[in-house]
């Protein structure tokens, strides 16, 4: 790496030159910032301005660029230079736009701007140019776990994109649940009845596809490594194992039907009471002829479909969610009966859930075929008169009633085959550590009944994908259905979320893209979403490491294992570059090339600290770059103002906040410190899962530091904010200024 040469470029456009002393900014960059080249331009983002910078890069050896002008979120197309480190001194949104344009404010406004120049120069001095992680394997090879419709779709789609696939199926054949069905719900619009499942064709396509290797009667006994270099051990029933290396994994392990034996009140136990899969078996056996009932083989003439059986219910043992597919599945099955048996088929539902265009078409199609629909609450199913009696309340006719049926189909829900929740073990560890015996008991019980692991991940954080809710491996983010917490491993189909076959196919296709993308990213050593494209990665100084394990425990993505000697072992491909490990490290040995304890620490120290008697407090703000920082930009654009004492530093995630920054700030005389992170808790908004929460916990412990320094607790505040807090955040900043006015300046000014 050649010598660091800093170029600082001051833009005087957008009114900067009118309100600030640009010469002074230039001098600050030179004198305090020690920039090697400093230039100003009235319109820096113009072609001419950009060329000015490019020329310095090309001809003057500038490899560290400081843009003094607008926010890092603005004019990104213009200020995009190759092979240099870039930062911004945000004096437009961060200074000009948040300060009133009046002579009495000119001095403090200029001070703000000068500070941002100093900060940016200090930061860039410690920034390297990331070159991507060393783990750069391109493995155009995927592991797909589960041979149902989701898994088969993933395999076929991956192969179509030029990827090889290892398809692992626990049972002896491909096809999964849909394979056990007689027919399926159509995926296209129009009033058509049930259609062929298409499973046979998929199986045939897979068998004929040289790109796809099928492992039947097999499970994944071990998964090690990271995106681009997962080493997977596939165990067959016979005991032999296969080792394969894959770039990414799609987990499409599907669901099992809810155990209907838990519903004796709905007739479970009677041979003629079946669940939906049971009915599919009857239909399949009938092969297009009349469907017969199990007890005596009599042709079925009347069937009741009981929707939401053991679902959408908070009774213990029931499923508290809706499984999404059962309404259309029952309509489909009722259509079999209409067509094959000319039978009465009554669907007793609470809400008929057939959404979208395809869904509503299918409902209407069922009606056209003469399926009977009734909004009814079933209270009991029992044997009567050689058949069954279904007692229910007809909610439309508002009466308790009953119908006789030859067969009853219970629409029970989906239970995800997702493996144990990895955080159970960690929670148990934590509970034991905290000596919370009640919690320990609860968790131990849960672990006892946890299903066997599916992926057997050799991760510090546990063996499987984390669950979101009800045992499903869904993403927590509405806009990002594939935002997994285990980079390179994507859940698809009903293991991710309750869904029908149509959605499962879409889901598996999407997950396949993400898996492919993970391989491509790994090959280039860059991060996945949300810091996609980021080439920086964490590394640590082994000499300083105390093996405290905080980084391994706190990593939200399970990226850090421990080696035999107890040192952290990074798996860069799994890392999402949030810096939570860096924030966690008490001895500050973890850093990224362009983001480190120093890049932030030096910035906050670069601020010119007025003395105690100047009545010019300084407030350090560490703002999450995902939400708080954009909100501040937007606040500025809307003309919201805040006090001139504030100095804002964006952080990748509040979880990357190392307490040393706070201690340093307090020691350097800052009068207040504000941390702005995302919402935590169950509905967390932090894209790094627990970053914000961890920061809150860390800051709750800062009180001791404050006490030891004899400082007031109010001086350090942590907030959960959102990107929409455009009015609230400036208020938070001003509130701190008021607080300082009240409690007085910090005594630590030197």
């Amino acid at each position: 790496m050649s010598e660091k040469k800093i170029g600082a470029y001051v833009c005087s456009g957008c009114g900067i030159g009118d309100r600030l002393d640009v010469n002074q900014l230039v001098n600050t960059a030179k004198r305090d910032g020690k920039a090697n080249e400093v230039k100003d331009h009235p319109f820096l983002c113009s072609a001419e301005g950009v060329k000015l910078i490019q020329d310095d890069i090309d001809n003057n050896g500038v490899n560290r660029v400081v843009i003094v002008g607008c926010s890092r979120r603005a004019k990104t197309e213009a200020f995009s230079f190759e092979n240099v480190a870039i930062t911004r001194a945000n004096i437009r949104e961060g200074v000009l736009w948040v300060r009133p344009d009046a002579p009495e404010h000119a001095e403090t406004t200029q001070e703000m701007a000068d500070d941002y120049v100093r900060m940016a120069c200090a930061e860039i001095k410690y920034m390297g140019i990331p070159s991507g992680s060393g783990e750069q394997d391109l493995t155009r090879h995927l592991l797909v776990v589960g041979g149902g419709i989701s898994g088969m779709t993933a395999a076929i789609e991956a192969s179509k994109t030029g990827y090889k696939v290892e398809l692992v199926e626990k049972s002896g054949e491909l096809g999964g649940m849909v394979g056990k069905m007689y027919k399926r719900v159509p995926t296209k619009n129009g009033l058509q009845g049930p259609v062929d499942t298409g499973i046979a064709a998929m199986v045939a396509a897979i068998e004929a596809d040289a790109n796809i290797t099928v492992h039947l009667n097999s499970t994944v006994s071990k998964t090690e490594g990271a995106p681009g270099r997962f080493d997977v051990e596939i165990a067959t029933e016979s005991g032999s194992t296969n080792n394969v290396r894959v770039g990414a994994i799609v987990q499409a392990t599907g669901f099992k039907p809810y155990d209907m034996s838990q519903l004796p009140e709905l007739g479970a136990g009677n041979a003629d009471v079946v669940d939906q899969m049971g009915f599919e078996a009857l239909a399949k056996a009938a092969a297009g002829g009349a469907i017969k009932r199990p007890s005596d083989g009599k042709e079925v003439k009347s069937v009741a479909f009981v929707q939401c059986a053991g679902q959408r219910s908070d009774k213990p043992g029931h499923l508290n969610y809706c499984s999404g597919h059962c309404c259309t599945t029952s309509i489909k099955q009722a259509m079999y009966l209409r067509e094959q048996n000319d039978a009465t088929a009554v669907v007793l539902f609470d809400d008929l859930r057939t959404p979208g265009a395809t869904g509503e078409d299918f409902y209407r199609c069922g009606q056209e075929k003469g399926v009977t629909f009734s909004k009814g609450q079933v209270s009991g199913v029992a044997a009567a008169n050689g058949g069954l009696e279904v007692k229910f309340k007809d909610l439309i006719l508002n009466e308790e009633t009953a119908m006789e049926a030859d067969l009853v189909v219970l629409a029970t829900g989906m239970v995800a085959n997702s493996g144990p929740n990895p955080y159970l073990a960690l929670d148990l560890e934590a509970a034991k550590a905290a000596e919370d015996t009640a919690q320990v008991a609860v968790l131990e019980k849960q672990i006892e009944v946890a299903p066997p692991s599916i992926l057997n991940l050799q991760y510090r954080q546990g063996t499987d994908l984390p669950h979101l809710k009800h045992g499903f491996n869904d993403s927590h983010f509405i806009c990002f259905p594939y935002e997994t917490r285990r980079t390179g491993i994507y859940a698809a189909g009903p293991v991710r979320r309750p869904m029908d076959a149509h959605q499962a196919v879409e889901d598996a296709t999407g997950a396949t893209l993400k898996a492919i993308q993970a391989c491509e990213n790994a090959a280039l050593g860059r991060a996945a979403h949300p810091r996609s494209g980021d080439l920086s990665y964490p590394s640590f100084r082994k000499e300083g490491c105390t093996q405290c394990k905080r980084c391994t425990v706190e990593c939200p993505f399970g990226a850090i294992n421990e080696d035999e000697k107890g040192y952290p072992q990074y798996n860069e491909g799994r890392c999402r570059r949030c810096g939570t490990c860096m924030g966690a490290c008490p001895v500050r040995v973890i850093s990224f090339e362009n983001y480190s304890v120093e890049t932030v620490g030096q910035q906050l120290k670069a601020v010119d600290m007025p003395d105690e008697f100047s009545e010019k407090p300084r407030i350090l703000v560490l703002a999450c770059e995902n939400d708080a920082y954009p909100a501040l930009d937007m606040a500025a654009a809307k003309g919201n103002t805040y006090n001139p004492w504030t100095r804002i530093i964006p952080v990748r995630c509040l979880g990357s906040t190392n307490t040393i920054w706070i201690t340093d700030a307090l020691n350097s005389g800052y009068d207040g410190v504000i941390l702005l992170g995302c919402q935590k808790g169950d509905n967390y908004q932090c894209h790094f899962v627990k970053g914000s929460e961890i920061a809150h916990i860390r800051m709750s412990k800062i009180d001791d530091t404050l006490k030891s320094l004899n400082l007031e607790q109010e001086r350090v505040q942590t907030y959960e904010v959102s990107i929409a807090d455009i009015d609230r955040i400036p208020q938070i900043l001003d509130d701190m200024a008021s607080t300082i006015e009240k409690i007085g300046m910090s005594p630590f000014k030197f």
Partner: protein
Amino acid sequence: MSEVIATNQTILVAGGGISGLTAALEAAECGKQVILVEKGPTVGGRVGQLYKYFPKLCFPTCGLEIQLRRLKANKNVRLLTMAEVTGISGEAGNYTASIKLSPRYINENCTACGECGKAVEGEYDDEHNYGMKKRKAAYIPYNLAYPQRYVLDPRAVGTDDGERAKAACKYNAVDLDMQEETLELNVGAVVWATGWKPYPAAKIQPYGYDRYDNVITNVEFERMLDPFGPTGGKIVRPSDGVAPKNIAFIQCAGSRDRNHLKHCSRICCMASLKQTTYVAEQLGDACKSTVYYIDIRAIDRIDDFYQKVQKDPNVSFVKSKVANIVSGSNGNVVLNGVDTEGYNRYANDHDLVVLATGMESTVPQGVFPEGTVINEHGFIDLEESNGAIFGAGCSSDALDVNRAAQNATAAALRAIQVVTKVAAQEG
């Protein structure tokens, strides 16, 4: 307009809403070349107009910001705004797409400094707020708009306002001579993600959207909650600006109805449930909400959101499609209908009505090559005969944001498969 380079290994994504952005970015992050065209001046689409998402009640701008960061960082995506695909011909792996570029009258020089906005005087209905408030003739569509560049309303061009804007700009960014242009691009595959528009509520005549001030739509209600929206974030009656005490949410307003949209629009149930939580949060016990519904489609694991709302004593549910709305006293309206659970007639007085208007597809006719199947609801089915034209998001069915993103990711893979094949053939 600088040159736009495209080849038959390029994927064209039409529509810069959440689906189009997702498809474009997912493909680009797989290393593919993408041209993303958006008809309006900014990406973000319909979700940019939402206050919060269900069921997490988080802000859509949060996800948009991440998408924008991905977009800014990725050189594989070329974004064209004010651009509309007007025709596609050819076949999978080799299409020619005609793209009409409308003049923005403000070029890339724009720094968003805001001087032109201060200089102009004219005001027009603000599209971002469904015309519920005004915006200037030179404007940024909304806080998070991207590209972060001003737009000059074409109606201001040729007026003093146009000249004012031009005079105010120090960066030579206002170009009043900008003309409409047409681009012809060679692309290998097309992801169509032009999304949806709210069904025109005035067409649902029994509900008198065009006759009663206090009958509004769910998308308008959503704008009302935005602190930067027409009411500064306050829930108020349009007629008198007073906080309502008794709101009706009417489901299937235009959906599941052969007089309007035959399909179920999927999102409206959850949207109304979500909106009752806005009411609860802002007005507490001072306001009741009543949801008139046929079926509550809080499908799959988010059914718990419905269960939570059901427990709110200020929210009630009536299984009934409201028959009609007539005027009551003091700007109130009266909803007539029957609660079908046991046949109870009602004539309920409400001081604000929110119509859960459905999603109408914006898939156009006459743009696609022959053989492309657009179904009777206006959505693009996944059909062999569609070649490499893939519907995504609400161009493929009425979908919520989560499913739209999922579906757009799948569509991106299908497009990638086509261009990968082209690349393999071309070596």
